[in-house]
């Protein structure tokens, strides 16, 4: 879904460019709350993962390609603001490193693959986590659904931009149907990978999942190694 140069006409490219820039600017301000000196490396890792995931391309109807988007994973692990930054960085680096996605189409690409996926996925994730019982399984299930929905949502946004700024007159209904249909399939793959990863991380490093950091047990003090006449006192 990386749009190349010349695919979308100038007015829509400029408009989405403005939207993307504004979105990233807001995310930069918001991320100051999420990003300390340890979450910066986490954001980098999430970006590296999203980068790798986006390299897996599936052929999609009407000749375009589809691939995993990673917006949901990013938002759930590092929070929505940093998540937007991660995916945007990935898109930018893909454009300059691999010529994947046009430089002048960055606005379109960031808007539908960073902003839309993160907003949809994170909104849905929070909603589900709030309504489901507070267990690890709920977190995993919520991330599955959030990831599943975020992919067709992004495809729909892409189709919308094409309807507005496509350089050719094609029957939009058909295109939208095909895009959404195929992206539901991709969404299933995305959902499985997102849920597995989030599940694995929650299991052993709950501190790394944004919003699930309040599971700390109190520390214990001892004067001798446990096992042989241990005296313990609670701290």
């Amino acid at each position, binding site marked *: 879904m990386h749009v190349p140069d010349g695919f979308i006409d100038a007015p829509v490219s400029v408009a989405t460019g403005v939207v993307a820039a504004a979105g990233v600017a807001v995310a930069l301000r918001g991320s100051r709350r999420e990003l300390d000196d340890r979450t910066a490396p986490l954001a980098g890792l999430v970006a590296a993962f999203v980068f790798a995931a986006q390299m897996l391309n599936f052929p999609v109807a009407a000749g375009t390609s589809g691939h995993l988007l990673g917006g949901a994973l990013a938002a759930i692990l590092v929070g929505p603001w940093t998540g937007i930054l991660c995916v945007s960085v990935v898109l930018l680096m893909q454009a300059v490193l691999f010529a994947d996605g046009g430089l002048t189409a960055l606005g379109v690409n960031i808007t539908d693959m960073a902003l839309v996926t993160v907003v949809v996925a994170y909104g849905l994730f929070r909603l589900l986590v709030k309504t489901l019982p507070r267990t690890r399984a709920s977190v995993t299930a919520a991330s599955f659904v959030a990831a599943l929905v975020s992919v067709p949502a992004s495809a729909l946004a892409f189709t919308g931009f094409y309807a507005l700024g496509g350089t050719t007159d094609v029957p939009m209904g058909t295109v939208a149907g095909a895009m959404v249909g195929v992206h539901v399939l991709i969404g299933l793959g995305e959902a499985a990978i997102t849920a597995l990863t989030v599940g694995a991380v929650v299991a052993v490093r709950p501190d790394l999942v944004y919003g699930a950091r309040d599971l700390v*047990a109190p*520390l214990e*003090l*001892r004067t*001798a190694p*446990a096992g*042989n006449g241990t005296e*313990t006192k609670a*701290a």
Partner: protein
Amino acid sequence: MVGPVNASSSPSASPVPSLEVTGLAYAYPDGHQALFGVDLTVGAGERVALLGPNGAGKTTLVLHLNGILTGGLGGVRVGGLPVEKKNLAEIRRRVGIVFQDPDDQLFMPTVREDVAFGPAASGLRGPELEARVRRALEQVGMEEFADRPPHHLSFGQRRRVAVATVLAMEPQILVLDEPSSNLDPASRRELADILRSLDVTVLMVTHDLPYALELCPRSVVLSGGVIAADGPTRDLLCDEELMRRHRLELPFGFDPRTVTVPA
């Protein structure tokens, strides 16, 4: 059990101890608690061995000494300075840590750049920087490898470069987490010579008991997340009951009573 004793031979009479750990407790993020209240004082210029079974919490303790791990109970002071966010820069200039896994330590594209990283970050430039790097690489015998990428070296070579990266920073306090593992015997002896020649405080984690005896007048046994013994190394090694309790057996063919420690 040998009670906590500050080795009196070393200049630990200095008013401010190099390292002062009090009541340190720590649990990893997955909930596993590794330290349960550790107290330890190391005087300036002392060389202390930190012994103990696998999983005792030695590495966890070491990672607290320059503020890499924080957030548990208790505290650490380095030369009187508490390990807190605002002092971290100064503390990391004072304390050099050689990690147990050299892959964690080496991250630059070439050995030379890696060794230069620390001194460069503290402001050294030009010929001075170069001399510092060259000297550190010579000390560990890796000067020929300066232009190779560290991840293309053998494990023992990487360990030597890891030691060099810390030596190049000329810290006042050297903390080494099993520095001699994977080194060939000659490099092991050379490392001992280097450590003996430096005028710094040394805390060395090791499972090599003869090496501890050779190099450190004082030893501390950490076991199950607490200090189990602290005293002159030879006394600890001769206390068979203590040794056995903490999985510290003397190796095959070694008798601490009969060997003479180099000066």
